[in-house]
């Protein structure tokens, strides 16, 4: 997979598979063709994704220490697929707003987040808007958080202005599972290490089919 260091605010991609290290905090990604983009360990990111008709995008973001406010805006028109997956551990209080606008026909969207809050607060507000005159669209919001001392607020919103859509959201907030913890301890792993293994596994689990390896907070092919 190509590795690109980018000091621009906009990139037009067409059939690109790449790990992109961004220098700017505001970034627009315009997609045609089939693309797989890994955003490398970006702490602050306001991201605009514009999907041209008949385009496909897998976008993966893994941040060990995310901070501050983030806005993600995804626009889809016709025959597009977006799989947006992001995992992070918060470093400071973090607010994330995701706006997914679906305006045409035959689009699919998966917005998947895995979050860990230690002592910080995380608030994530996901809004999917499906416009009138659109049809045959499918969208899923799948957001799970582990609270390990901090607080997580998840607001999964949907504004659906058409009958021809399948829209679902799944939200879970909890702490580290005690049964999992006991299981790993019963294999001889100390509590603190077991907890970190479970958390790391939780954050990585959404990338398991993407043939990537995560090393110490960074994401690589």
């Amino acid at each position, binding site marked *: 997979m190509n590795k690109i260091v980018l000091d621009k605010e906009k990139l037009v991609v067409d059939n690109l598979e790449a790990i992109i290290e961004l220098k700017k905090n505001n970034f627009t990604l315009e997609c045609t063709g089939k693309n797989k983009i890994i955003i490398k360990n970006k702490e602050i990111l306001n991201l605009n994704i514009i999907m041209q008709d008949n385009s496909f995008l897998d976008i993966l973001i893994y941040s060990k220490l995310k901070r501050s406010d983030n806005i993600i805006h995804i626009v889809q028109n016709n025959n597009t697929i977006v799989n947006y997956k992001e995992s992070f551990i918060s470093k400071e209080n973090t607010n994330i707003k995701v706006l997914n606008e679906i305006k045409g026909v035959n689009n699919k969207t998966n917005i998947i987040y895995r979050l860990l809050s230690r002592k910080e607060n995380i608030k994530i507000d996901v809004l999917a808007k499906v416009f009138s005159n659109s049809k045959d669209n499918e969208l899923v919001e799948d957001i799970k958080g582990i609270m390990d001392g901090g607080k997580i607020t998840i607001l999964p919103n949907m504004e659906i202005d058409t009958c021809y859509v399948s829209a679902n959201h799944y939200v879970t907030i909890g702490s580290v599972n005690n049964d999992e913890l*006991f299981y790993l301890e019963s*294999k*001889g*792993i100390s509590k603190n*290490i077991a907890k970190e293994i*479970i958390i790391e596994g939780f954050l990585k689990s959404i990338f398991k089919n993407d043939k990537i390896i995560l090393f110490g907070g960074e994401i690589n092919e």
Partner: protein
Amino acid sequence: MLEIKNLTVKVKEKVILDNFSLTINDHKIHALMGQNGTGKSTLCRVIMHNDDYEVVSGQILFNGKDLTKMDTTAIAQEKIFMLGQSPIAIEGVTNAEMLRTSLSECTEEPINIFAFNKKMEDICQMLELPIDFIHREVNVGMSGGERKKNELLHMWMLEPKLIMLDEVDSGLDVDSLKLVANSLKKYYEKYKPMILIITHHNNLLKIIKPDKVDIIKKGKIVATGDYSLAKKIENEGFKAFNISGLGNNE
């Protein structure tokens, strides 16, 4: 040697084990039989110091160390291994990652990755598991039979001295039961551990013959004998010992 002396255990004010005593000598296989809800599974979890259970009185001595005063990790590092009836799945954590961490914590030495991988491959082959099980997430997406075999993979890697099998035969088809039992038998012949087999019936005991069989009811041992006791239960049921009726403590 494992010595459980006058152990009384409660959960939320309810007595689960009542002045319970049991001894397993080195290299011996011990079966604990009983109906549902008699406290059998509780025993394993109490030995592993699960915080859900309160030890009111008594001792659990393993080679002279009182396990009731140790945490779960330290108990496991004494080479005590529990194979439960429904091993849980952990997303995102692979067998290799978990076992490497466990072994390196136990030995406090870095793991020789080449030797580790070779051993994992050999064990997978023996258990008729695909090699990719090494890097599969712990029990994720596995059938009941695969989970039991996966736990055996962990057992062979961790080389325990005391193995507790909590209804390991439940949910296994005939072939899987044979494979699991034969793997346990092979392990026993190689390492001569103590084994505690907790079960409702005789299926596993036909292949791994216990030296001693105890029958438990409502948290107390009510009958003791050799393997013939297990055979008698298979033929006549628990009624033969005037201990019929569901327990309600498990």
